[in-house]
């Protein structure tokens, strides 16, 4: 149902990480990322521990490392931005390879690179091991408002439908010779966007009527009642627990 490019995010498997209850995995991800962000940037060795732990989870989940690395390329724009900081930052300067760079800027760049990379890696691992409907159920059980997860679920379900409609419109326009190069030729594309909105909205009306016809009363039915067991919680939380212990260790060591 969620087809297309969303399937590309998931790696089918039966590892313990795949089978773990989604709410435990989601909570572990959030706690892990919080711990990473809370780590003082001067404690470079601590980031090594975080990275090692994450790598252990990736291995445990039997994810192809090439897949994870490929998916992590989404952070390239951030990396490029972070690399500018040493040149833009103020304060005292240091010489790196004969070029003057701001010390604060260098630390800032390191901070972003290390934390963003670990965060992206953790997110990629979660999505690769969890089907999207399960992921949304996980959020449900973590007390995220049901209304919000239901809307998100609908969006995920219909992304490919709407994107497909957009793609067909573009194909039709290109077939008729529309090949805009400059901003002032953008009119037809913007009109297509307006038409797409009308179509999406009307589809929403039809979907709503179909739902009402099947007994929808404003609440989405819950199909899967399985909850995380205490053992699953403990297993999932082992990762962020170690990260937080590392952070504590950094904070107490002078």
């Amino acid at each position: 149902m969620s087809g297309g490019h969303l399937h590309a995010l998931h790696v089918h498997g039966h590892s313990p990480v795949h089978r773990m209850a989604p709410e435990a995995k989601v909570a572990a991800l959030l706690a892990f990322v919080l711990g990473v962000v809370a780590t003082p940037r001067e404690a470079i060795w601590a980031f090594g521990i975080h990275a090692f732990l994450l790598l252990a989870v990736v291995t445990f989940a039997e994810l192809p490392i090439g897949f994870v690395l490929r998916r992590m390329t989404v952070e390239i724009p951030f990396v490029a931005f972070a690399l500018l900081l040493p040149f833009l930052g103020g304060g005292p300067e240091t010489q790196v390879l004969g070029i003057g760079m701001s010390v604060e800027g260098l630390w800032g760049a390191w901070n972003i690179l290390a934390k963003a990379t670990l965060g992206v890696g953790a997110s990629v691992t979660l999505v690769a091991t969890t089907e999207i409907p399960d992921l949304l159920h996980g959020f449900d059980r973590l007390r995220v408002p049901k209304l919000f997860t239901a809307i998100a679920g609908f969006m995920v379900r219909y992304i490919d439908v709407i994107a497909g409609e957009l793609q067909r419109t573009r194909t039709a326009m290109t077939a008729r010779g529309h090949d805009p190069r400059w901003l002032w030729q953008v009119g037809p594309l913007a009109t297509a966007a307006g038409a797409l909105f009308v179509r999406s909205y009307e589809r929403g009306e039809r979907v709503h009527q179909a739902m009402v016809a099947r007994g929808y009363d404003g609440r989405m039915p819950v199909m899967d009642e399985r909850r995380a067991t205490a053992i699953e919680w403990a297993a999932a939380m082992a990762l962020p627990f170690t990260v937080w212990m590392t952070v504590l260790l950094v904070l107490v060591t002078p």
Partner: protein
Amino acid sequence: MHIPEGFINLPTSLGAAAVAGGSVWASLRVASRDLKDRLVPFAGLTAAFIFALQMLNFPVAAGTTGHLLGGALAAILLGPWLGIVAVTVVVVIQALLFADGGLVAMGLNVINMAVVTALVGWYVFRAVVKVLPRRPGVLIGALAGAWASVVASSIGFAAQYAIGGVGGVDPGLVFSSMIGVHGLIGIGEGLITAAAVGAVLTARPDLVTGTRGLDDLDRAATSLSRKAAGGFVGIGLAVALALVVFVAPVAGSHPDGLERVAEDTGFAAVAEDNAYSGPLADYGVAGLDNDALGTIIAGIVGTGLTFAAGMILVGLARRRSHSAEVA
């Protein structure tokens, strides 16, 4: 625009998450009061629409393309509350599924991209349609609302950076280059938003929430005249430059958040301090005794450079994603 992990410090990020959570919760309540059981399919479908819209690349110039942020468009079409909900869902899904923007930084991103854009876009639009006569009012309102929403979003980012940013970049520099670049980006956003609103107005005028309660909608224009579009581009450029020239030095000389740079008197002074740390610094002062003029030129050049760098980055990223799709 998506803020990654580690860019803004933890207390600021958590504070922003609380503010964003509260705003979205309140928006959900208002939207669900208005729509009742229709909320879930409608908001879900419109969120999918905005997501798809952000995949649609518009040409900017000479082969470079950009995409719509959509916050103002969502607000004008759906009202600010449903608009906030729909764009927030997009931002959250982008962070969760596509790792686009950090999880801890999600609150910052939701504020900049959903809450600020929808509210500013909506209120500017409503103010304009109340003042201007019907015929040009709706489209000029959409232009102005979308432009202001993008600029406000960049101000939100600059404010967050001033409060808790890492890297020690002068907040005045961040402010002026963000606002300058987004003043330019906002021109594209404004033109496309107005054209899209016009198209909906032609097909289903009842769906444009922003024009509810206005009479004689029949006399509203549904497409931009060449002259109006040209005028908007001119005004947009002028306002963007004016912001860089007049507002940025003032903001730069009062960097509230970072005491460390409190002694710096603004952009030019910082550029002078770091005269050897980047090409921008040379533009700040080289050969110019006049501090204010140096600041202005540095602001304009900084804006141009940042814009060019952004364009190249976007172009590279696009080529990458295209080859990924083909593969």
